[in-house]
């Protein structure tokens, strides 16, 4: 008899419904919905997305205080890269003791954002910045070099409008 009643009255289903209902009402009818702690969805892209400080985004050549590229063409990053995404040609510049890259080509399509290149660089000349919106319309724009037409390796990508793109 008891078992029969149990089959007839689906209490456990009601409990589940109550739970989902509770969450729905809490979020739906709370004042200031977007800011409440229960509202777990970010309003991206209206609100730019925040990433953690160690986030690995697009590769970027860093510059020193005199706005000059730090890279000295030691080739360590090229050896470390598992996907051969980086290649560079060393050159010279007047009034600088160390070498300076004549061209520094980085193929974004091949990069897997592992960060090995940044770790291998003892001069802190490169960094993975905080950009993650990297899609472009043309495939050529994925090959990024110094002074590129669309995007340049020493500047953040112009595509990432909604992701934070400060230095580092």
């Amino acid at each position, binding site marked *: 008899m008891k078992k029969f009643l149990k089959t007839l009255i689906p209490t456990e*289903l009601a409990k589940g419904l109550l739970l989902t209902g509770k969450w729905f009402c809490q979020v739906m009818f709370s004042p200031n919905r977007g800011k409440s702690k229960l509202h777990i969805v970010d309003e991206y892209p209206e609100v730019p997305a925040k990433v*953690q400080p160690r986030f*690995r985004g697009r590769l970027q050549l860093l510059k020193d205080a005199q706005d000059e590229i730090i890279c000295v063409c030691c080739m360590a990053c090229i050896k470390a890269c*598992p996907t051969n995404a980086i290649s560079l040609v060393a050159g010279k510049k007047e009034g600088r003791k160390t070498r300076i890259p004549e061209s520094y080509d980085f193929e974004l399509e091949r990069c897997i954002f592992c960060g090995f290149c940044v770790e291998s660089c003892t001069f802190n000349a490169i960094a993975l910045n905080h950009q993650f919106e990297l899609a472009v319309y043309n495939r050529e724009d994925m090959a990024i070099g110094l002074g590129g037409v669309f995007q340049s390796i020493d500047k953040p990508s112009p595509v990432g409008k909604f992701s934070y793109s400060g230095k580092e």
Partner: protein
Amino acid sequence: MFKTQVMEINMGPQHPSTHGVLRLKLGLDGENVKSCYPIIGYLHRGVEKICENKAFFQGQVWTDRMDYCSAVSNNLGWAEALEKLFGIRVPRRARYLRTMLNELNRLNSHLVWLGTHAMDIGALSVFLYTWRDREKILDVFEAFCGSRLTTTAMRIGGLQEDVPEGFEKMVRDAFESVRIGIQEYETLLSENRIWLKRTVGIAKLSADDCLAYGVTGPILRAAGVAYDIRKAHPYAAYDEMKFEIPTRTEADTYARYLVRLEEMRQSIHIVEQCLEGLPEGPVMAKIPKTLKSEVGEVYHPTEAPKGEIGFYVVSEKGGVNPYRFHIRTPGFLNVQAIPLMLQDALVADVVTAVGTLDVVLGEIDR
């Protein structure tokens, strides 16, 4: 006039509930499954061969991409295998942090499993709740390793960086949410009659069959064999942790669900022990810049969320890359058991069997 025959139907490789590109060749007699034949290989990338052609330290990025729900476990197994090969001793702090990351990863993987498995069987809201909790754990990974999915968390000899600022608070916040979460999943599922009807007694796999087929992980433990590499052959800092191995004897889908839920609770317990007893010290051992190997071979098993993952490395003298690199992935051996599980089953149970194995085709095909 009327003739009956067994009809062959392909389930997959594009079926949404095969979790990737698993193809099952089903022989159907009406609703009854007469035969089942899993076909794999659609996601084969040759990870082993690539690792043989890259320097030792570069191999890690491919282990990330094998089982993409538990990248840290793969990284850990890979790192420990190579440390064994080179005879490197890892600092105690690094071992603690590794243990912690590995257990967080187990939570992550089980949450993914629970959400997708429940969704396959028909409980959609569980999926939304598990994803809510998983997000917090992924944030912890992002803060620690810099990436959410392809973590590249380990280095040969330790870890790249120490804990970031506010890490402990982040982990505890995540746990607060996961703890409530686990209770909610139990409310939604454990007594739910639809869930019970679809899981109790379905896709059984006895302990003997598990052992014969090399099935490991929660599936083996749900069949009553208390085999967990974390206890049997402790690695990282597991010998200093207190935890239990949950087992059941029913060996069906519902038992595996209970085992995994209990494992999630144990994982939280282990991470809290790590946070409390975290020793001071460096996180990286002193290792030479380029690793040159001697003649040798190692096999190192670790307990990934899905079962035993083992790395077998053969090296030659003065080599900068492995001579042979083999990965024993849990999913590859577990998926063989599908035909056994589906003896005299109905078509609807095929989805249950695939889901309960927790297959990730990235590691099966690798």
